[in-house]
């Protein structure tokens, strides 16, 4: 059973954007009933049939490593988090569409994950100014996911969509927007349309 190949994906983002719910949805096919803070890192596994139906079909274990915390954490927390960033095959960046700060913080998250060897304050990114060159050489595929789309009032939706389109271009990433519905019955049911996921 452990003979299948493994793919390690990091799920990064600010506190409270919905990473744990997303991972739970992807792996257990159910909604997470009572999301609570992630301390440290929580891993979940999904079996994926790559290129299903074709002769090239291969089954992989996709490990989703959901790392908790915020970019403003103490440097002791950041140094401890760095052990999770070894031998990563891809990164999923999650941000909250109702919270602009969480999208801005994604730059710092990516830098922290990619340049885990240098000290956390080695490369300073200030308020939106950053160097695209850094992401061009980046061999890791990035996927950008925006959550809580339904909580944005109708008139602001276009503005938010254009902003996230710019963001995904900056990262050279694929973009997906998740719709989360708050229904009576106190559960979050997330409906989403996947385009396609492909990995190196």
């Amino acid at each position, binding site marked *: 059973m452990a003979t299948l190949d493994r793919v390690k994906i990091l799920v990064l983002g600010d506190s409270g954007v919905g990473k744990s719910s997303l991972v739970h949805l992807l792996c257990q096919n159910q909604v997470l009933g009572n999301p609570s803070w992630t301390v440290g890192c929580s891993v979940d596994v999904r079996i994926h049939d790559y290129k299903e139906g074709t002769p090239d079909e291969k089954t992989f274990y996709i490990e989703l490593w959901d790392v908790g915390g*915020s970019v403003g954490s*103490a440097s002791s927390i950041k140094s401890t988090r760095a052990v999770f960033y070894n031998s990563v095959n891809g990164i999923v960046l999650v941000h909250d569409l109702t919270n602009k700060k*969480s999208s801005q913080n994604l730059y710092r998250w990516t830098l922290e994950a990619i340049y885990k060897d240098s000290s956390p304050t080695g490369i300073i990114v200030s308020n939106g100014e950053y160097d695209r060159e850094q992401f061009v050489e980046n061999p890791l595929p990035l996927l950008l996911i925006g959550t809580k789309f339904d909580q944005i009032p109708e008139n602001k939706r276009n503005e938010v969509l254009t902003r996230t389109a710019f963001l995904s271009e900056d990262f050279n990433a694929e973009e997906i927007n998740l719709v989360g519905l708050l229904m009576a019955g106190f559960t979050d049911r997330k409906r989403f349309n996947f385009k396609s996921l492909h990995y190196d």
Partner: protein
Amino acid sequence: MSFLVDSVIMFTSQVLFFGFGWLFFMRQLFKDYEVRQYVVQVVFSVTFAFSCTMFELIIFEILGALSSSSRYFHWKLNLYVILLVLIFVVPFYIGYFVVSNIRLLQKQRLLFACMVWFTFMYFFWKLGDPFPILSPKHGILSIEQLISRVGVIGVTLMALLSGFGAVNCPYTYMSYFLRNVTDSDILALERRLLQTMDMIVSKKKRIAMTRRQMFQRGEDQNKQTRFWEMIKSVTSTQTGSENLSQIQQEVDALEELSRQLFLETVDLHATKERIEYSKTFQGKYFNFLGYFFSIYCVWKIFMATINIVFDRVGKTDPVTRGIEITVNYLGIQFDVKFWSQHISFILVGIIIVTSIRGLLITLTKFFYAISSSKSSNVIVLVLAQIMGMYFVSSVLLMRMSMPLEYRSIVTEVLGELQFNFYHRWFDVIFLVSALSSILFLYLAHKQAPEKHMAL
């Protein structure tokens, strides 16, 4: 005419303080969060502005700036506004935001917020009963009733913070207490953490694979109709699911272990950074300060005990006493009136500035440690409430540090409170807090090396 000028001066300074509070909020407290509710920011800045204005009025009192009647008027006005904010506005909004976070009560937020506020008022009122704060000749709705209760809460907070701060400050500054952490300790712990994560991953893979096989077998079974095939499938899925729940339990235990290991590793990293910091020049300076503060802390605890045991409340303030000593014992003659004004101004100014700065820094640290994007609004409002009450009781207690002629305005405005009670209460709580902090830190310090022995 002078009243108008004075009012303009007061108003300008209030606007300045408001701006400062706003900036502090944006740049320091909320720098990682999106501010969505402007009402929180406004309330916080207003509380900060009016608290600082009270301190400003004390300074004006000492300096003799502005006319005495306008000072008195502004004191009263300021006091009413601050009490209004601390007792009506802030608790209501705290209740409102707490209720908003709970999904069940979303529909009738306002109703529940009002209910929370009434509960708060009830307990607030009951607070005054066991304390001999007032003389009985005051009515129910007088300002003294409100101030006395706010004062009690604020003084308790101040004493708790001072007690804990007095003990914690030498503990953090002095490197004597730092545990020895080597790089190999950290590496060993990190390796354990990664091993645990790998075990979790492999178990989850087994669960996923077993579930997938069960699912596939279940699908195949839909095509079979033979009776005994169905029985066979039932037994095999049963063992499958038993296996599954057992592995799930193991996974849960391992996840708990991984969380603990993560927290321990963070702790070790933090200690290592502190060790490195203590080797720098700044670190050595703080280490020296730590020794100084520990002596100061011991002296304060000693004085608090003496005050309680001998039932003694200081009658004169430090400034006058200091001047008396210099005049009587050292024989140095100088103009008492002139110097006492300036020295008390400087002393009171230092106390004010350090207490504001200390409070803001503590609040910021506290906020970073415990807030999240959901609860940040509530926490900021709670901090605003604490800040307001802290500043009001600072004014109460500061009365002791001022010479007699300046105390009059505070006594006049705040009415006939039993000020001695507050000082006694402060000493008691300070003592309790300091001693329990010592106990707590001792236990925590003892426990930590034992944890690492087990590695």
